[in-house]
Structure formats: C-alpha cells, structure tokens
C-alpha cells in the first residue's frame, strides 16, 4: 500500500519545466530514494508535496486524501515532515529550543500552557541523546557545526512524530563517519515505522539504504524499481552521463 501518491505533477518556472507529468508512489514503511542529475527537479518535487510552491497541475495524495493546495504548516500537521538541502535550523534559538518549535495539531491552550512543556522537553532531550547531540542542547543553533545542524534538523522534524519524512540530501556535505551515523539513524527511525523519501547524490548511501529508487530526469520519471536494477538501467546511465 502506498502512503504517498504523486500523480501527473507538473511545475514550470517561466520557460523552465522543472517537473513534468511526474507520477510516483512511496510505499508505507519504505525508504524510497529519489535520484537524478542536478536540476532534474527533485527539490521542486519536495516543495510541491510540502506546499511550499503551488503546482501547475497534478495531485498529491497522502493516506488516501488529497493534500494538494494545502499550506506547509497544515501538511506538516497531517504527518509529513521535511528537511532542506542545506540544513536549516533556527540560528538564534538553542538546540533544545529548536527541538520544541515543531507544532502538530495544537490548540491555543496547548500553545500557552507550561505543563505540556516539561513532557515535551524530556522527549526532546531523549531524541537529542539518541542523535548524540545532547551535549549541545544549550548551544545556539548558529554556533553548531554543519554536521550537528544536519542531525538537529533531522531530530527536530521527528519531534511531532511524522509518518512520512522527506529528506533532501541528508548526506550532502558531511564526512564519511557522520554519513554512517545518519544512515543508522534513518534505519532506526524506519524500524520504528517512519517512512522516508530521500534525495541523495551519494549512490553508495542510496544503494545501502533504499528499498526502492525513483529516477528523475528533466522533471520526468525515467525509471523506478529496486536499486540494483535501476543502477543497471541504460536510460539512467545516459541521464547521468549527461546526454
């Protein structure tokens, strides 16, 4: 069964067709990879799914309900989290405060009450511990290293217990040791039932982690299936070798 279904999605920026009649599905409980050369439209697909930019056409269905046209905060509220290609955190909030920003289905009472806080803080600290960044809980986000920001962004997105998380280059710009750690975290979260759709240029990372891979080229899906088959697909090789 698929958790997310993208159907005939289209988006153009002026003369550039960024996403062209793109259809793909993400199976519940899977780690699905979305790959493709630079500029093939991967980030744009993320922006369309999460409501950051309006689509020209097509539909996005999450848990059998269309979410096309909803604003980003509501989409997050429904259970779809995302990270950004260059890790984005709140620089003037501490690491712990960064963890507490995410809101999911909260009424005004909850937003002003102090009691629910302490419970949330405990959970945030546990999460930071599991990501090995609890030692910087009191540090301002702007003072974190790039790797720490990547981990914090992932940890913070998990705070509201999303069912689907879109990761835009989780391994981009991090060293091999950290890359290994990030892969472990994703695997762990996946084992707890979180579904992932991830964009990544590091093929080793994708091959190791993903159950299923979708290849995008010039905004169109040119191949999909299990990672090994996809890698051997001549159309995919052509796309990457820059036809």
């Amino acid at each position, binding site marked *: 069964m698929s958790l997310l279904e993208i159907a005939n999605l289209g988006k153009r920026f002026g003369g550039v067709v960024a996403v062209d009649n793109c259809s793909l599905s993400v199976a519940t409980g899977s780690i699905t990879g979305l790959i493709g050369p630079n500029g093939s439209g991967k980030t744009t697909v993320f922006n369309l799914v*999460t409501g*950051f930019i309006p689509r020209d056409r097509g539909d996005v269905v999450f848990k059998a309900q269309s979410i096309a046209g909803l*604003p*980003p*905060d509501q989409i*997050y*509220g429904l259970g779809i*989290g*995302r990270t*950004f290609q260059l890790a*984005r*955190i*709140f*620089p*003037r*909030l*501490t690491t*712990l*405060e960064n963890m*507490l*920003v*995410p*809101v*999911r289905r*909260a009424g*005004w009472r*909850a*937003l*002003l*009450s*102090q009691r*629910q*806080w302490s419970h949330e*803080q405990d959970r945030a600290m546990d999460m930071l511990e599991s990501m090995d960044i609890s*030692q*910087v809980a*009191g*540090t*301002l*986000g*702007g*003072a*974190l*290293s*790039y*790797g*720490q*920001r990547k981990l914090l962004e992932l940890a*913070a*997105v998990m*705070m*509201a217990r999303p069912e689907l998380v879109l990761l835009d280059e989780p391994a981009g710009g*991090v*060293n091999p040791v*950290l890359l290994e750690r990030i892969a472990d975290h994703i695997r762990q979260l996946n084992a707890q039932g979180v579904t992932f759709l991830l964009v990544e240029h590091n093929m080793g990372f994708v091959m190791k982690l993903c159950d299923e891979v979708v290849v995008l080229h010039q905004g169109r899906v040119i191949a999909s299936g299990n990672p090994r088959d996809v890698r051997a697909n001549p159309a995919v090789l052509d796309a990457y070798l820059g036809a």
Partner: protein
Amino acid sequence: MNTVLRLPALKPAGLGLALAAALAVPLISDPGTASMAVFITMYVGLATAWNIMGGYTGYISLGHAAFFGFGAYTLGLFLVHLGIPAGYQPFLLVPVAGVLTALLAALIGWIALRTRAATFVIVTIAFMFMLQLLAENLVNLTGGGAGLGLPVPSWGGDFFAIPFYYAMLALAILGVTVSWVIRRSKFGLGLLAIRDDEDKALAVGVPTRAFKLAAFVISAALVGMIGGVYGYFITYIYPQFVVDPLIGISMVLMVFFGGLGTLSGPVLGAIVLEWSQLQFAYHFGASRLYLIFYAAVFLLVIRFLPQGVVPSIADLVARRRHGRAAGPPGPASDSAEPPTRIRPGLASP
C-alpha cells in the same frame, strides 16, 4: 542569552524592589516628577508592547502610533459622545479601547502581514498616515484639526498626575506580564522561530500567519489602551499629536537600545531614553532638539551595541563566568569540538 536576570535569588528580590519603588514614586515626588513618571511608565508599556511584535517576530512596525492614537480617540469619543463625566469611570473604558484597537489591528494585520520585511514596514507607515488623515477629516466625529476636548478630571493641583501614573503603571505591568508569558510559551517560541527563518518555521508546522497576527493584535491592543489613558491625561487630543510618527519611532528606538526580543531590554530602554528626553525638554524647552540626541543614540547603538544593552551586558557577564571569551561562532566544521556558549534553561528574558 540573558544571564543577568536569571540569577535565581536576585530575580524575585529585584522584581519586588522595582515594584515597590514604582508604587512609591508618587509618595516621594513633586508634581513635576510625577508627570515625568507618567511619561516614563507610558513608554515602558509602549516599548514592551511593541517588542511583542517587533522583537519576537522580527516584523518591524513603524506605524504603531496609529494604535496609540486610535486608542486615545476611542476613549475620548466615548467620553464625549456618551457624556461620561470626568472622574475615575473613564479608566474603566480603557479595556474597551483595547478591544476596539485589537479589532482594528486584526484588520490592518490581516492585510499588512501578507508582506514581509521592508514592505511590511512601509505598509504600517501608510496605515498610520491614513489614520491620521481620517482623524483630521472626520470633523463631525473627531473635531478634526481643531482637536477633541475631553472632560477634565475634577482632581487637580499636585495630585493631578498620580491616578494617571498608576493607570500607566498597571498597563506597563500588564504588558511585561503578557510579554513574559508569551516568551516562555510554545507560542512565543514559534514567534522567535518566525524571526529566525519564517519558511523553516512553516515547514515544522508553525501556523505563521495566525501567530504573527496574534502577536500583532496583542501588541496593538496594549498600545491602544496606553493611548486611551494618555488621551485622558492630556485632555485635549489633536490628530498630529496622538497619531504621532515620533511616538511610533520612539518605542522602536527604545527597544533597539535595550535589546530587541528581550524582556527587560524595552523596560530599560524606555526608562533611559524617555528620562533623557524629558531632561532635554526641561533644559532646552519644548523644541524637538531631542531628535538629534535620538539620532545620535541610534547610530551609537547600531555601531557599538547592535544587540542592545541588555544582551551585551549579559554576554559580558557570561564570558566572565566561563572564564574565557566566547567569541563569535567560527566557520562550521564537522570535527569542531562542541561550542561552549551554553545558555541554560529554555526561556530567557
């Protein structure tokens, strides 16, 4: 970030002392000082209220004088047109002025908050001048440029300013309390997240439009109530003196001076700058010479204390405590040891 006021024992004691001193001001002062105290507490309230929007969310409104003037006119028109006699009853209408100002702010905010950054600043200024024009031209209602005369309180002489002082003090305390509650709540954290990165805040579910609008309305309602008390205090209101761009600029400058987005910064900024301005007025007459002083202060703050006084002092204290300079964060690197700039606890003023 602000360690000074976090010292557990000092905080309640300091607050208690400040409160006692504030309550005692009229007992130890002559009439001149009492009316100075009205203005200073008024600006403490205004700066604190402005900070709830400008400091927490980073949306700089230069048009808050619109709400100040609207509050003054609302109260004044109620008194005049409903024939409410002077005395203490008019103070009971202050919350009504607050509610009506909140409604106006909801309308203005609904439009203005579709814009960001510089555009928002311009839109708030535009609304302020629109309101000023309305006050000038709805002559039948407001008296226009000839002004609106309010009933004059029966108490007079040396005692005149005292009730106004306590009204302003109550509103300032209300403002600081509201600001404190917000700063410590998830709502307040959402506002700070908007200040840091609005799109990222949206991505983690912060309903940014609703949050910004709520902060704007709360901020404006407080300013409107203070405007109401002010109108009654001066007893004669003119469009250009209540919807006064300089009042709007003053609150902003006070917050920048004390520390944008902090709890104690606006209070400190208002006390220091308004006191200085009143000294200027005392020594150099009612000229607007203080504007040069304001401009100089602004340039100095931007140049030497870009964060404002309170955060700068707090940083200094924190550095002393940690025994070494916690310089600005260096370039990010994966292998770097964890930074030592620790900020304990969650919400700091």
